[in-house]
């Protein structure tokens, strides 16, 4: 018995440690491939350079248009996803009856399970032509369409985590507020939401991380032009779609290859910071 337990403990420990190993492996490899780039070009030219022409001779390797593409698409997605996600969480947790809640939740979960390529197809075939006609813009493959699709994609993440946070607020707090004469809406916005703010904020940060790292949708819907967006209807080329569409042809060790890994480093740092931030908010909730 004792040896069995002993074995079990170490097998599960090994399983748990593997993820650390994988993380380290990924970090090491992107830095190993990407860092040599900065022997040739300087870091701020890379980050703030306005031109991305990686296969020209000589190549222009400025990723500022790509970074801004990612950031704008993600902010747009949050503008769509946060009100809808948090709104649905408030409804499910505070307003809906148990029956309605049980009926609605599976749909939100199904939304979470749809593969991103299907979101991309929908965006390309349905939303983009609609956006083009509705707003009378030259093309529907742009920042606006990509933001909407990504926004819809992150609704389930924001909604389910926010709902957990809202449901965790104690009943006494609500009852006290109602007893003091506040109505239901005042109770939701002035008592329950602030009490659940850490959880809601971490759900939004998680949604941010999901949106900025999403590749397939932006590859299919954002248009792919490496430019600083001039309006919300400009085509953009987020970092992920540049890596995905160019990595296949970049020969190992070439400058283009290193630059794509350089983009991966930037992307990794952004998502790493956002998950640190999320853990900090989640931790704050526990401390309170």
């Amino acid at each position, binding site marked *: 018995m004792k040896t069995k337990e002993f074995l079990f403990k170490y097998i599960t420990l090994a399983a748990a440690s593997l993820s650390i190993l994988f993380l380290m492996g990924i970090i090491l490899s992107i830095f190993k491939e990407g860092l040599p780039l900065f022997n040739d070009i300087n870091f701020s030219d890379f980050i703030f350079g306005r*031109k991305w*022409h*990686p*296969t*020209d001779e000589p190549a222009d390797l400025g990723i500022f*248009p790509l970074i801004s593409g990612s950031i704008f698409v993600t902010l747009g997605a949050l503008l769509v996803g946060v009100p809808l996600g948090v709104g649905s969480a408030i409804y499910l947790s505070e307003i809906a009856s148990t029956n309605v809640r049980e009926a609605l939740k599976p749909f939100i979960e199904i939304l979470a399970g749809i593969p991103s390529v299907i979101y991309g197809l929908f965006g390309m075939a349905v939303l*983009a*032509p609609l956006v*083009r006609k509705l707003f009378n813009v*030259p*093309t*529907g*493959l742009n920042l606006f369409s990509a933001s909407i699709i990504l926004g819809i994609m992150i609704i389930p993440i924001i909604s389910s985590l926010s709902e957990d946070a809202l449901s965790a607020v104690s009943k006494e707090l609500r009852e006290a507020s109602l007893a003091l004469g506040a109505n239901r809406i005042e109770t939701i916005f002035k008592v329950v939401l602030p009490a659940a703010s850490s959880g809601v904020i971490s759900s939004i940060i998680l949604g941010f991380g999901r949106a900025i790292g999403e590749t397939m949708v932006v*590859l299919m819907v954002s*248009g*792919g*032009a*490496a*430019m600083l967006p*001039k309006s919300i209807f*400009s*085509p953009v*080329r987020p970092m992920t779609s540049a890596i995905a*569409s*160019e990595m*296949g*042809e*970049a*020969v*190992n060790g*070439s400058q283009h290859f290193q630059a794509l890994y350089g983009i991966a480093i930037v992307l990794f740092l952004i998502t790493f910071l956002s998950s640190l931030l999320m853990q900090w908010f989640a931790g704050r909730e526990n401390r309170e």
Partner: protein
Amino acid sequence: MKKILSMLLSLTLLAGFIFAGDITMSGSTTVFPIAQLAAERYMDKHPDVNISVRGGGSGVGISDIILGRVNIGNASRQIKNKETKQAKENGINVVETVVANDGIAIVVNPSNGINKLTLEQVKKIFAGEVSNWKQLGGASMPIVVISRDVSSGTFEVFKELVLKGGKVREDALLLASNNAVASNVAETPGAIGYVGFGFLSDKVKALEIEGVVPNEKTVNDGTYKISRKLYMYTNGAPKGEIKAFIDYILSSEGQEIVKETGYIPLK
């Protein structure tokens, strides 16, 4: 039923066992329709052979052959000196086989009133010097320039023959395949793009360039200027099953496939 089963089977094969086939090929989305149809016909005749075909763009095909990741790299442009050198450094001796001829058609939406342009006008459109169809005698409508990713051989050839090395305007849409360009041009009234002949259909309008209609005849007699060859690259001269497959494409039956998919057979 049998057909559905074999379709399912080939889907699983494609999805799960890309490297399990006897012949693997990747690269140009222009060459893809030829490679795909030839592979299907060839596998019908030789049920013991598996051929898997992926797209990705010419750059991908050539880089895959340089890195020894596939048996055949498809390309719609010729390998660059730089790439041949890289291959040599990897111990790979790249051998070229021309499998078909092709033209690059400049396409617009069928609703566009413009039917012909000069090379100079096309260049100006893609460079961004002309940005409204009105400036070319068409309706007042902003021009939506649709180009291809940097891994595209069609883009490289277009850049060389039409842009003469110049750059495409920075707000051009960059799409990942010939098919994506064709379907976006078909959907977008103000669009202009370029595709291999295999992607022409009645959903897009191919423009006369310098007064010459793009077709097999004008490419063959050299009057249509935007043309190129389509290539398959191998490591060393093709041998065994790979040679048999490439010989099949070069045979009269294979060249019939080239024709069937909309490209121009070798003479």
